[in-house]
């Protein structure tokens, strides 16, 4: 199915209900597109470093030399990278797959120092504003952006959040996963403070930290992309425990955290484990509530990657036991090769959870999402 799009684009007068919110989708800059947005002092430094530099991939997704860890049909014909063409994303994700609103999560990498991380974050935010969320590229009003914040530099990150908060098209704060120490450390409090003051959830996506060049487990490095990617959820499991046991949600009762692409089935036994140690040892940090209560009120996970056993009934039951309708937000991860189609995800969810997970939870978490959007003739409806 191919839907022809002609420029200039007209917004329909007719409104339609939002039925699918995609909370994980990745725009990327066209070649050179980010540079003008970088603070001047970093432009030539970053350019010099990348002169003569090649691929930095160490853990390779299947058939990497041909797929680059992307859906191979998502590369635009102009030779730029997957995710760099707003029109192609619009066609494949909104028109063909049937997602109604897309929360863009740009992953433009980081730097070698706190200042560099922050500079990339600043540039990424200004670039989203100019190249994705502006009235020309976002004529359909279906894109929302993320305020990228450099957790390496919490005070600067808090300033950056303040700078963009209130932008009608910025819906969340976005941070990277692999930083040390874990999120319970009080050094990050300015970020939580700025986010909650502005009613923004903080989403955490896989992303390099500065301590190890690659994510390292407590028993050393994994061998393949397979064991690495599967075990990545252990990092999120630790962040959840840190947020809970270190009292972050007692310090910031309005904080909402979204774990993107960390899988979620592990959250069920993790809640039992946290409750079990809490019952045995009591509230070590003066916690006010049972650990699983904090999870259900403050933590969200996106659905992709939707991992299932052969026996689908086991999956359904585990969703019921964890009360997944209080935890999950639909996501596709387009244009990455692990893309999940919204119709396929919806079909695997218990009927009574479907609407909450596909869009209602998102409308609650992301405070500035509309419940209706201008209709798009010919758009597939996934739900």
């Amino acid at each position: 199915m191919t839907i022809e799009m002609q420029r200039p684009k007209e917004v329909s007068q007719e409104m339609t209900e939002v039925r699918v919110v995609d909370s994980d989708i990745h725009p990327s800059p066209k070649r050179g597109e980010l540079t003008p947005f970088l603070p001047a002092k970093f432009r030539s430094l970053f350019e010099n470093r990348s002169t003569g530099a090649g691929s930095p991939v160490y853990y390779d997704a299947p058939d990497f030399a041909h797929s680059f860890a992307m859906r191979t049909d998502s590369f635009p014909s102009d030779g730029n990278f997957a995710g760099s063409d707003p029109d192609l994303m619009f066609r494949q994700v909104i028109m063909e797959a049937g997602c109604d609103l897309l929360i863009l999560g740009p992953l433009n990498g980081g730097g070698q120092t706190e200042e560099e991380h922050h500079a990339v974050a600043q540039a990424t935010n200004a670039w989203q504003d100019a190249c994705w969320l502006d009235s020309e590229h976002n004529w359909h009003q279906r894109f929302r952006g993320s305020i990228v914040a450099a957790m390496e530099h919490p005070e600067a990150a808090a300033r950056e959040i303040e700078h963009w908060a209130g932008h009608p098209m910025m819906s969340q704060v976005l941070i990277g996963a692999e930083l040390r120490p874990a999120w319970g450390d009080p050094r990050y409090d300015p970020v939580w403070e700025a986010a909650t003051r502005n009613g923004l959830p903080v989403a955490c996506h896989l992303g390099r930290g500065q301590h190890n060049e690659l994510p390292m487990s407590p028993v050393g490095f994994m061998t393949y992309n397979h064991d690495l990617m599967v075990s990545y959820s252990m990092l999120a499991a630790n962040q959840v425990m840190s947020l809970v046991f270190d009292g972050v949600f007692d310090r910031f009762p309005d904080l909402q955290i979204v774990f993107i692409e960390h899988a979620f089935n592990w959250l069920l036994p993790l809640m039992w484990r946290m409750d079990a140690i809490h019952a045995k040892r009591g509230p070590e940090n003066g916690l006010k509530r049972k650990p699983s209560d904090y999870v259900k009120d403050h933590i969200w996970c996106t659905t992709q990657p939707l991992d299932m056993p052969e026996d689908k009934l086991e999956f359904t039951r585990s969703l019921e036991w964890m009360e997944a309708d209080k935890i999950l937000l639909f996501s596709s991860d387009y244009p990455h090769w692990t893309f999940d189609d919204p119709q396929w995800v919806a079909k695997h969810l218990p009927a009574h959870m479907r609407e909450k997970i596909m869009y209602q939870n998102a409308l609650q978490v992301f405070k500035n999402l509309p419940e209706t959007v201008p209709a798009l003739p010919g758009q597939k409806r996934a739900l």
Partner: protein
Amino acid sequence: MATVDEIAPGEHKVVPIGRWGVGVYNVDGRFYAIANYCPHEGGPLCSGRTHGVTVVDPEVPGGAAESRAGEFIYCPWHQWGFELATGTTAVKPEWSIRTYPVRVQGSDVIVTA
């Protein structure tokens, strides 16, 4: 559906049969036809790449080699692989794709759908 010289060895052509189209593949002179639809999440299967399967080969550096080059189609979305001739997979034979009988008559490739 197609002529033999339209599809060179190693090449394929998607012809308009059914809802998704059917991909006709030439693997070293043998022709196969599969639905352009992946049973996993519905990806456009025939936009994927064909290659072989990896086997253990202790004699080569790295210990692995490609076997049966070109005989498998890998989905462009999640890289699941299927054998063009049978539509199945070694890992989980029950996850298969639809294949169609193909015969060559003179210079014509005929797919029975």
